[in-house]
């Protein structure tokens, strides 16, 4: 499956070819695992810029573009509130969607979309954007399908964070999974120690783990228990 690039919005660092291939592969696997028909990824930068990072096909691209143009839709809501938006059937009146996305709903109905799911790309106070999934047939994501979707979102989140904060580092395909509260507690501490942002602090934890052959959880534990301190960077 080829990713369709969309020239919408301004990207300070356009995703490189390797990253795009990785995204295509990642979303391709998810399409099968979560029984979805396509997916789009939109980012919102810390400066308020927004860009469409990826669309698996023309329809996914159309869904992303519509939301940008109209300023309404699941991805817009998810980005604004940081919440997850799951709409198993856009025609179900109980969802109360007609008042929420009046124009967007009409437009996506015309192109045959029936179910939409927007999952935020975030780590606590770090908001990076959202992944939009669509289906042509109505139906909720099962627990297993949702699990597969979140796993993909986690992987995308780390890549985006890394490429945004330190594009010079290049693309690293492999990333150990992690998901503990200790990491976030440690990131808060490291942020003060280094005198940086929470985004940079999280990346420093990850880079340190990578460089020392440890897991990010191990490094985080060292920080939380005071066995490791980062030094403020001189600029």
């Amino acid at each position: 499956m080829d990713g369709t690039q969309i020239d919408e919005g301004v990207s300070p660092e356009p995703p490189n070819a390797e990253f795009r291939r990785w995204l295509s592969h990642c979303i391709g696997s998810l399409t099968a695992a979560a029984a979805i028909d396509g997916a789009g990824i939109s980012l919102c930068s810390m400066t308020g810029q927004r860009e469409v990072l990826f669309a698996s096909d023309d329809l996914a691209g159309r869904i992303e573009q519509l939301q940008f143009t109209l300023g309404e839709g699941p991805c817009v809501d998810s980005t604004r509130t940081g919440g997850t938006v799951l709409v198993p059937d856009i025609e179900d009146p109980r969802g109360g969607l007609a008042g929420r996305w009046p124009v967007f709903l009409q437009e996506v109905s015309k192109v045959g979309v029936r179910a939409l799911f927007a999952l935020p790309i975030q780590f606590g106070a770090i908001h990076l954007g959202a992944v939009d999934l669509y289906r042509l047939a109505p139906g909720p994501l099962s627990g297993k399908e949702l699990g597969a979707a979140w796993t993909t979102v986690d992987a995308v989140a780390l890549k985006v964070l890394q490429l945004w904060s330190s594009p010079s580092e290049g693309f690293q395909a492999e990333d150990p999974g992690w998901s503990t509260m200790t990491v976030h507690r440690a990131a808060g501490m490291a942020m003060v120690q280094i005198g940086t942002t929470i985004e940079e602090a999280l990346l420093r934890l990850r880079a340190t783990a990578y460089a020392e052959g440890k897991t990010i959880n191990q490094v985080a534990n060292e920080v939380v228990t005071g066995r490791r301190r980062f030094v403020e960077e001189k600029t």
Partner: protein
Amino acid sequence: MNEHPAQQRSSAQEQRNIDLAERFVLLADTLVDDYDIVDLLDRLASTCVELLDVSEAGLMISDQRGTLQYMASSSEATRLLELFQLQSEEGGPCVEAFRSGRAITVEDVTAESRWPRFGRAAAEAGFRSIYAVPMRWHDEVIGGLNLFTVHGRPLRHPDQRIARALADVATIGILQQRSAHRTSLLAEQLQTALNTRIVIEQAKGVVAEHGQGDLQFAFEALRSYARSTHQRLSDVARSVVTRTLPVEELLAARKPT
């Protein structure tokens, strides 16, 4: 005037019933306001310690990726967080309660063969027995409530029932979080709750680092600032992490003027 032992027992029982009723009314009252989920669940964990014969309590919820995540506890101590983390990595009573949908009792952690590493860590942290209750919503189990005791007495039957009722309140709390537009799905609410916890952990790290490392102090500073300025705990936490709210200001608000 000496009361008959039976009368003493019944008046102690009466007092306990009043305490219980008051606690549940207080928790129900919290659910009406625009409450912060982490604040509510942390209070609920503390309520467990006050009402039941247990020394620490904590909640874990499903991250929908197949793992349970630490969500709230009666104390911010790192040793407690480590016990939850160990459970999500290697299993433990709470994870077992979540998987099986049944309450799990560990009477003696030192004799626990199912999760030896967890058993050792719990014993090192000073705990002796553990009781874990699943948090349910209809047919789905969304997490678990963990109760830790320092003595070897298993939780008495009435306490077990109260623990189950408190776990139900936690479930309702997660489901009733304010959603921007409509009735939200459980999966949406779980994710919101987890992210709220992440923001608070980030902020605790920031505040603790300013205040030289005490996480309990950091949490209380965040909570008291949120209360005194009538903001949600997670909003205050977010402001601290994004440096919109200087930590100095947060800490200064705690000092009497």
